[in-house]
């Protein structure tokens, strides 16, 4: 174990290093550039023994990763915003091809106007590609999520790719302490990638051929089932990771929710700021809690219900909006509750769009808005009115 002070982009790079990826293809985009720069350095110094193809677009980055991964080679890429959107077609392709690629995506707003700042619109709009999506809170989690991501994705029962989402600048360019795991210990946790079917001249198969209506349907069902199965796998791997390395992860993380009247539902860096705010509000006598959601896909319906079932008000914070409806995390959370016939006043809070800061003061305003207003609608927190 070695502790270092690094930014989130470097944490992603070191995650790929510790996972001993053998193939990287990437294209630069702010604020992901530090990932490609660091990986270039690690590869050219020989610290990471991998092939790094500097492709001419994000679309080709993902396509090249598909090629390598299909040949049985553990692959990594990183992107952000417009780059992720350009990849969209091949995100579907890589997932349907059941290629367990891991990618870090720096959550950044999409244009126009040009914005390089934090916003989840990029990854949220790729929700239905078949990629697992984890949203992380700090740089340690960036690193850990990449290692766990490979373990979960490469599980023969899962075989779906993982997107590790970190907030632009609030993580990508923020330096924090990250504990790195020794390679030997990582190897005991994450065995080499050895898929049953790959591009192998000794066992030739064609992948992704024309699939008639007679067959296509069941392949889709299988992806859905694998995604559902991944929920347990995520929990198992999170526990194993904790047992081995001392940091436990689950699909959600509940903070002072047991007796809370108002529960905030947050993700990404906002979750950390929300926890800090919960402590301050509790010191002022308010029974507030926070439920951090780590995974948007698969979505932790059961845990969301379990942690929220006793709340009097549920307040979901989104850093994006599905125009004409509401934030995705809000929709997903409500749907989970509905599945359990639970009807609780809910509030959808849109905050931090395009990098607008979500501070302790912002979270206070969110809680106050929920206290003062009728439920079941969305509110724009921090909007100039």
């Amino acid at each position, binding site marked *: 174990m070695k502790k270092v002070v690094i930014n989130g982009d470097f944490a992603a790079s070191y995650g790929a290093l510790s996972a001993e990826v053998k193939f990287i293809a990437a294209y630069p985009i702010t*604020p992901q550039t530090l990932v490609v720069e660091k990986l270039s350095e690690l590869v050219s110094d020989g610290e990471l023994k991998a092939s790094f193809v500097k492709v001419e677009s994000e679309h080709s980055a993902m396509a090249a990763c598909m090629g390598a991964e299909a040949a049985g080679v553990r692959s990594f890429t990183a992107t952000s915003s417009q780059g992720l959107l350009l990849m969209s077609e091949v995100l579907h392709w890589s997932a349907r091809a059941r290629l367990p690629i891991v990618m870090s995506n720096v959550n950044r707003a999409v244009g126009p106007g040009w914005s390089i700042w934090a916003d989840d619109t990029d990854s949220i709009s790729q929700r239905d590609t078949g990629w697992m999506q984890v949203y992380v*809170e700090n740089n340690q989690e960036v690193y850990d999520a990449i290692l766990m991501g490979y373990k979960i994705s490469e599980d023969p029962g899962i075989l779906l790719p993982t997107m590790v989402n970190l907030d632009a*600048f609030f993580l990508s360019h923020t330096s924090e302490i990250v504990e790195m795991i020794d390679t030997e210990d990582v190897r005991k946790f994450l065995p080499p990638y050895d898929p049953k079917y790959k591009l192998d001249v000794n066992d030739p198969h064609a992948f992704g051929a024309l699939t008639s209506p007679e067959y296509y349907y069941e392949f889709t069902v299988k992806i859905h089932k694998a995604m559902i199965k991944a929920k347990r796998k995520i929990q198992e791997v999170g526990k194993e990771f904790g047992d081995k390395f001392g940091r436990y992860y689950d699909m959600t993380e509940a903070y002072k929710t047991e007796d809370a009247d108002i529960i905030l539902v947050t993700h990404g860096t906002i979750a*950390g700021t929300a926890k800090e705010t919960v402590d301050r509000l509790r010191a002022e006598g308010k029974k507030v809690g926070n439920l951090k959601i780590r995974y948007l896909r698969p979505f932790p319906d059961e845990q969301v219900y379990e942690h929220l079932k006793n709340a009097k008000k549920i307040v979901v914070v989104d850093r994006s909006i599905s125009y004409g409806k509401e934030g995705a995390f809000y929709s997903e959370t409500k749907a989970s509750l509905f599945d359990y016939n639970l009807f609780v006043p809910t509030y959808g809070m849109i905050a931090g769009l395009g*990098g607008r800061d979500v501070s302790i*003061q912002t979270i206070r305003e969110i809680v106050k808005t929920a206290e003062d207003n009728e439920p079941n609608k969305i509110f724009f927190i921090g909007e100039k009115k």
Partner: protein
Amino acid sequence: MIEIRLHGRGGQGAVKAAEILAKAAFYDGKIVQSFPFFGVERRGAPVQAFTRISDDPIRVHSYIYEPDVLIVLDPTLVGAEGIDIIEGIKDNGKIVINSTKDPSDFEFHNKNGVQVYTVDATAIALKFHLGSASAPIVNTAIVGAIAKVTGLVSIDAVKKAIIDTIPRYKEENAAAAEDTFNNVK
């Protein structure tokens, strides 16, 4: 938790100063966080950077609005059009300014307990040939002053952080920090 805000101009190394400060505190056993103001920095433009130092895990990821400590790398930023250097400074906060002036020359000195400290980091940077004569890089020099004034970090940790962070002229940068450590007013 101590929150520090640094003001500088693009090219002076305010972001690196924030990082060195964080690393030094980390070497002293603290939990740390540092980050730039997220913008599209251009040489000469006013920039900000931030450092948090704490005994407990740092969970907040947002800008710093009420700093305990302010650091000003460029004296011309004080009173510059559209910039309120001392905005949000806590009562009894500390301000370290790269300046040839005396602390008492600053109107906010001794108001609400705020203490101003000055150090001629530019002269020290020039003495150690850091940057060029027209654009001295003062970030390492000023961190030495911060160590002295705030006691948040040890000078040994600062020197180690500089050597780990600065790619070239490591020793000269470390010496500059030590120099300011000894000469801050």
